[in-house]
């Protein structure tokens, strides 16, 4: 069968782009159909490999944005301006294009509804992407969930409409903070995530939440360290660092 794995190795699958949707000026969601995809858990990532006509290859990792759905995989990608791969994915990719994909990868930064809650999610910039896969998977489960989501400006909040629609729904509370620019009448926070904000809007340690923090490395370190100092056991504060740029690696 095509795509059958050599023992132990992750196979590269040929994924076909079925759609590319605009999330923000710098962010697109690439909709993929990947025959042979084994399914995934929210929070996992994939490696993708692009091959140029001269044989040059570039490989990157991206978080999966959707809950498991057959062979469909959604990757939400932020353009890193000096990047080699993300400008191509954001600006050039069209339905019908193909590239290679392997995964899912990672058994640590994962959450499924059967893991229960309460669930505390903290995302910085495009770090919200794997958290969105968790939010999409929990829909309808009633698991009490809080998301603290930091971005620079309102037009950089990915998934805003979907989050607002869900927020009105069952047991999902979303708090936003915009660190650089705010629209007039903004009612969310207007500063970088800090200890006082975490104390005010995240689940207290005595509720024993499962905590997932994703974003740029400096953001993740600050949030995780502060949550542990607020009494959360380190093993319940799971982190995924994107590196210094805020892009997916």
């Amino acid at each position, binding site marked *: 069968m095509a795509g059958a794995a050599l023992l132990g190795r*992750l196979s590269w699958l040929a994924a076909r782009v079925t759609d590319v949707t605009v999330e923000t000026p710098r962010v697109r969601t690439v909709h993929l159909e990947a025959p042979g995809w084994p399914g995934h858990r929210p929070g996992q990532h994939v490696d993708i490999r692009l091959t140029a006509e001269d044989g040059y290859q570039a490989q990157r990792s991206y978080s999966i944005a959707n809950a498991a759905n057959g062979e469909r995989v959604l990757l939400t990608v932020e353009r890193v301006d000096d990047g080699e791969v993300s400008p191509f994915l954001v600006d050039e990719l069209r339905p019908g294009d193909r590239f290679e994909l*392997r995964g899912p*990868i*990672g*058994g640590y*930064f994962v959450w499924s509804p059967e893991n229960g809650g309460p669930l505390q999610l903290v995302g910085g910039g495009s770090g919200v992407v794997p958290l969105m896969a968790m939010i999409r998977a929990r829909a309808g489960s009633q698991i009490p969930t809080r998301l603290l989501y930091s971005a620079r400006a309102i037009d950089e909040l990915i998934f805003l409409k979907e989050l607002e629609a869900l927020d009105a729904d069952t047991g999902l509370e979303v708090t936003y903070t915009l660190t650089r620019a705010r629209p007039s009448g903004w009612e969310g926070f207007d500063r970088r995530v800090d200890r006082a904000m975490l104390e005010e809007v995240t689940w207290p340690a005595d509720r024993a939440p499962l905590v997932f923090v994703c974003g*740029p490395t400096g953001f993740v370190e600050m949030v995780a360290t502060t949550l542990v100092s607020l009494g959360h056991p380190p093993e319940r504060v799971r982190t995924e*660092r994107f590196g*210094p740029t805020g892009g997916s690696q």
Partner: protein
Amino acid sequence: MTEPTHVDGNAVGALLHDVFGADMTDRRGCCDECGAISMLATMLAYRQAPGDVLRCPACGAVIVVVVETPARVRVTFESLRWMDAAASS
């Protein structure tokens, strides 16, 4: 101000999967320098070098180095006292 450049061991998950034949990110390893026990997913991954370096999150010691060339993948255990053979949870 320079931001830290490392990511999580999780980011090296595919390469480790290739090397060990299974997902390794939820396995624990013990640092031979300081004795700290951490999951590979939570080790600090430095990917700028020609190869991937996993460091102990407690003391910074180099635990594992993975270098991939077209011909082979070589794993060097610098400071790994032991590692779980199966997932710890």
